[in-house]
Structures are given as C-alpha cells and as structure tokens.
C-alpha cells in the first residue's frame, strides 16, 4: 500500500499527531500528548499506531529526568524513478528555471510516451 493510501486511513487523532510530529521535526512523547491535548494513554496509543505504520520513528531517551521516547517523522521513501523517462532524468535538475516548452523537456516527454 502506498504511503498516501496509509495516510488516508488514519483517524483524525492519528492525523493530527502525525502533523504535529512532522511540523515539529521531532518531539518528546511527554510533550507530544500535552501539545495534542489528549491523555498520556491516548497519546501513547496514537504513537504505537503511527510507529506500526512506519510513519514515524521513536527512540528511547531521557528527557527532563524521565524515560520517554523521542518521536521523529519517518523519512519519506519516495519513488525517485518517477523523475525518469526511459533512461532520461528530468531536464530541470540543476536548472533554476523550469521551461515546460523547452526542447529538452520535449525529448523527455517523447521518451515517456515511446520508451516506457
């Protein structure tokens, strides 16, 4: 199942939790449930579920003198081969401007239509 499909099936609480972890870039579980305004038990259930789905990573740590987890978003495992058409890489890489009518892009699109 794709990441997008997994995310679509999240409950509202799980989605809010995932957003919080992504936006913070990393947060301790003891702060997580407070920020999310849910009970610690509920917070931990949300974290379990997100970790099971591999949407986040957790690492044991000591924070403010307590054992807790540090929660970080899982690196998004994107399919970079979508930048390829046949054996051609997107012509926009390394260029500042994107010109959708350029010859280089025409060739890329031709390759997409006839070499894939």
């Amino acid at each position: 199942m794709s990441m997008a499909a997994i995310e679509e099936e999240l409950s509202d609480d799980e989605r809010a939790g995932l957003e919080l972890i992504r936006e913070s870039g990393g947060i301790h579980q003891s702060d997580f449930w407070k920020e999310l305004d849910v009970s610690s038990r509920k917070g931990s259930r949300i974290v379990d579920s997100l970790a099971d789905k591999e949407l986040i990573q957790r690492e044991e740590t000591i924070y403010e003198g307590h054992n807790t987890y540090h929660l970080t978003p899982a690196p998004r495992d994107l399919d970079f081969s979508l930048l390829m058409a046949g054996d051609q890489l997107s012509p926009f890489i390394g260029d500042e401007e994107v010109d959708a009518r350029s010859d280089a892009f025409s060739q890329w699109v031709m390759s997409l239509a006839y070499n894939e």
Partner: protein
Amino acid sequence: MAFEDLLEDPVIQKYLHELVGPKGMPVAAAPPDGEVTDEELAEELGLELNDVRRALFILYENDLASYRRLRDEDSGWLTYLWTFKYENIPEKLEEEMHRLLDALEDRESYERDNEFYLCERCGIRFEFDEAMEFGFQCPECGDQVESMENTRLVDAMDERIATLRDELNVDHEREDAEA
C-alpha cells in the same frame, strides 16, 4: 564510505552525475565519513586538485556538501574541511519531483489545447496558427505539413501526473479549485 544505501539508487547516481559531470563523479560517488580536505580527496582518488575542487563546490551550491575553514597559524594558509551532506538528497529529489509535476501539468494542457502539424521531412512541429500562416507548407522545405496526433503524449503525461500526485500526496481537488 558513507551514504552507501542512497548511492545504490540508480536515480541518485544519475542525479549526482548530472550535477558534477563525469570528471567530478569519482568525488561525488565516494563520500567519506566525516571531514576531508580537497588535497586528501585528490590524492586518494588520483585526481587533479582542480577537478576535486570543482566537484566539491558544485555539491556545496546544491546543499550536498559544506565546509569550514581553518587557518594554519604558522603559514597563514587556509585549509578547507569538507563534509558531505547527502542526507539532503531525498529532500532535493522530492523538490525536483514537484518541479517536474508542475511542468507536466503545464505541458499537458498546452498539448491538449492545441492542434499540431508536422513536416515529416524536416521533423519540425507547428502550432495550428503557425501552420496556417505558412499556408500549411513547411517554411524550410515547402512540403505540405500534416495534422499530427498527440494523444499518446497526452496520455503518457496524464499517467505520470497521476502517479506523481499520488506519490507526493498532492491534493488535486484543492489545486483544481485554486486554478
């Protein structure tokens, strides 16, 4: 060597090659753990110092390497200590996927909204207005231009657009509403 997993991906290899070129590739393909000087790299890889420096600065410009400078107390010379930042590659490629998606959407509507004519001899394509201006004759060779089917291009673009949107989690309903 660091970042071995990333460097196994053929798209990432191609990406680095695109940035630094064939001469810079030995530098880009073998990032060491921790800090390294340009001289160390040149010696280790058996390359010209200039080629190593050029590759490192391209990586730096693309946020894939950073450096700090140390001044030798005695000689006053500056040493550059380089660190490879390949952990930024996935983020950079994600950005490239968004740029490609934008270009595909732009090009798809251009292809869909226009009629094209082709001079088969010269392989030149004209928009309807252009073709009409030339009396449907190729301005290069004088041959008659023929109406050109581009359904296959449009279909291929539609398919890649849908896959990219799904992969990048782009909400097209919202984008359509904004458009």
